[in-house]
């Protein structure tokens, strides 16, 4: 026999809403959802996109140093984010603005690090939304440790709806190649932890296409570690919601980890510093525009749910108000003081650092009226 004989077939994406906005059923992932709920998902998608666009604009205007846009990935993020219960914890990369939104993190909070006035600075335990993590993959191990704590706290498989807790760990197609992510798989599998790994395969890691990382679909990775993996249409918010719910439910009930690959597309540049024209063809972008995560929901709402123009007009107004608020608030995010770097290095400040800080205070004071 040839060891290399067998080539597995490419899987179908799990889809519940086609790019044309047609609601379809998937035998394994039934979703009962009202049109009102879909409308509310649509609102999230639109507001996230608007907020994201505003941040990109703020970067262009010099108000932010950088922005990592989630354009095109709104459904993957809102679908997952809306599947979380209030006790669940999420561990984002640096691009999950849509998840932050669903977790009620004020968008303005996210701007701090991109503006350069903080390194994050929010409290992960406030909205159960961890700090953005820039070193790729590191947060997946944090999710694992957090989940170990969840288990030890007896917050898995108790059957109590408000107690049982799942952990949702995000990473990208590129990050899937980091040792840390694979160690996270190993730990989660070995201890059957309540972690759902959520890989947004947006086809690119900066300029490297996903084929650089893997020659098989990424969701398959999980099976080798002994837990289920599933690929979902990442531009279909209903499918992302249904699959995330299922995986989170199973995690909470003690059935262990799942890997979800949300198959989507980074419609924009990697960040505002990036120039994707150097490495990808516009054709590709056009193909993906036809699969836009928002358009299909709008089509559904208009055609199937009879949502009228009033709603869309009101949402436009709400979007603009949001953008306006963000714009204003961003401009007022003030620079930290020169002594702030010393403030939170330690929970228990050291004499050494206190002395270094004091020396710096003296130095700064030496300029007062010194004509420098």
């Amino acid at each position, binding site marked *: 026999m040839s060891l290399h004989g067998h080539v597995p077939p490419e899987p179908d994406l799990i889809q519940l809403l086609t790019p044309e906005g047609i609601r379809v059923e998937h035998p394994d992932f039934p979703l009962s959802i009202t049109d009102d709920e879909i409308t509310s998902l649509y609102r999230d998608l639109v507001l996230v996109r608007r907020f994201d666009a505003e941040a990109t604009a703020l970067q262009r205007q010099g108000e932010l140093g950088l922005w990592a846009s989630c354009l095109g990935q709104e459904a993957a993020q809102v679908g997952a984010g809306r599947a979380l219960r209030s006790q669940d*914890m999420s561990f984002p990369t640096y691009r999950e603005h849509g998840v932050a939104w669903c977790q009620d993190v004020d968008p303005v909070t996210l701007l701090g690090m991109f503006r350069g006035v*903080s*390194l*994050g*600075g*929010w*409290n*992960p*335990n*406030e909205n159960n939304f*961890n*700090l953005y*993590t820039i*070193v790729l993959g*590191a947060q*997946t*191990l*944090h*999710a*694992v*440790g*957090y*989940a*170990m*704590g*969840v*288990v*030890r*706290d007896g917050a898995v498989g108790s059957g109590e709806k408000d107690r049982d807790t799942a952990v949702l760990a995000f990473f990208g197609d590129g990050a899937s190649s980091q*040792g*840390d992510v694979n*160690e*996270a798989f*190993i*730990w989660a599998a*070995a201890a059957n932890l309540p972690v759902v790994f959520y890989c947004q395969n947006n086809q690119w890691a900066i300029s490297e296409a996903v084929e650089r990382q893997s020659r098989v679909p990424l969701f398959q990775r999980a099976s080798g570690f002994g837990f289920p993996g599933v690929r979902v249409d990442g531009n279909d918010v209903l499918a992302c919601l249904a699959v995330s719910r299922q995986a989170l439910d199973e995690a909470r009930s003690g059935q262990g980890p799942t890997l979800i690959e949300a198959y989507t597309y980074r419609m924009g540049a990697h960040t505002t510093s990036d120039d994707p024209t150097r490495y990808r063809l516009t054709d590709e972008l056009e193909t993906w525009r036809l699969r836009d995560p928002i358009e299909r929901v709008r089509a559904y709402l208009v055609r199937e749910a009879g949502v009228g123009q009033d709603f869309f007009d009101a949402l436009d107004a709400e979007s603009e108000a949001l953008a306006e608020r963000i714009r204003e608030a961003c401009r007022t995010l003030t620079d930290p003081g020169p002594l702030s770097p010393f*403030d*939170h*290095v*330690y*929970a*228990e400040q*050291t*004499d*050494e*650092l206190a002395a270094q800080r004091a020396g710096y205070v003296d130095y700064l004071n030496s300029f007062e009226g010194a004509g420098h």
Partner: protein
Amino acid sequence: MSTMSMAAALNAALRNRMEADPKVLVMGLDVGKLGGVFRITDGLQKDFGEDRVIDAPLGESGIVGSAVGLAIRGYRPVCEIQFDGFVYPAFDQIVCQLAKFHNRSLGQVKMPVTIRIPYGGGIGAVEHHSESPEAYFAHTAGLKVVTCSNPSDAYWMLRQAIECDDPVIFFEPKRRYWAKGDVDTDARPAPLHKAHVVRPGRDATLVAYGPMVATALDAARAAAEDGSELEVIDLRSLSPIDTDTVVQSVTKTGRLVVVHEASVTLGMGAEIAARVQERAFYSLEAPILRVGGFDTPYPPSRIEEEWLPDVDRILDAVDRALSY
């Protein structure tokens, strides 16, 4: 007050903290049934269960990374790295996450994680089992780094490290694990980051820490026979450094030799020299000298005793310092 080995003292400290605080967990390779390759965690799994004394999958990045996550959830993990030379796969998690998380969160998330690392040479081991990586960590803002040289410090400093709300890299001088000493578990311990004058003297100061304290004391005894009184300081804390205690001593003696096993270039001796020459400039009667491992990889064990600082090399440096 009782007499015990450093290994037993460390075990007792872990036991004490685990009893006091259910949030304290122990994790690492072989820490369960085996009790760790040095038996520091001996018996803990039996008494505290498999979910508080965790045999980890074999990955150091996983150990430290999950400790960060546990800390976010409010736990207080104590990680064991099996040997000094195996800490590097966890370096990224230590430097970029553990050390920076509290700061990144503007103080809203604490990282009370202790990382225990048996370190140093002198036990006849194969490659990667005898290294002294402390300077890497002492150069990293956000970490605290300490090391013990005797059972009493081992007991108290480990307790204090676990109680500390900041990440502490706790270096254990593995070749001193079996040396015995008195431990008073009812005493009031000295502050964790305070250096100790362990032998007073007036002619020159020797600064050492961890495994080299005993060697420095041997050197001081030998020097005393030749008529020189060396003051020996056990640094104990490598970050922060108790510079005051060293400066005070040098102000008196005018001469300083720093001793460690780590390679001399950019080892702790460099930092101490830089600080002391600045703060005790007018007191110094001789340049500060350093006795450390050479700037080579740790050698094969048959010649480690020659490579490592010993009494002769320390005395040679003291002689040179005294000759100015």
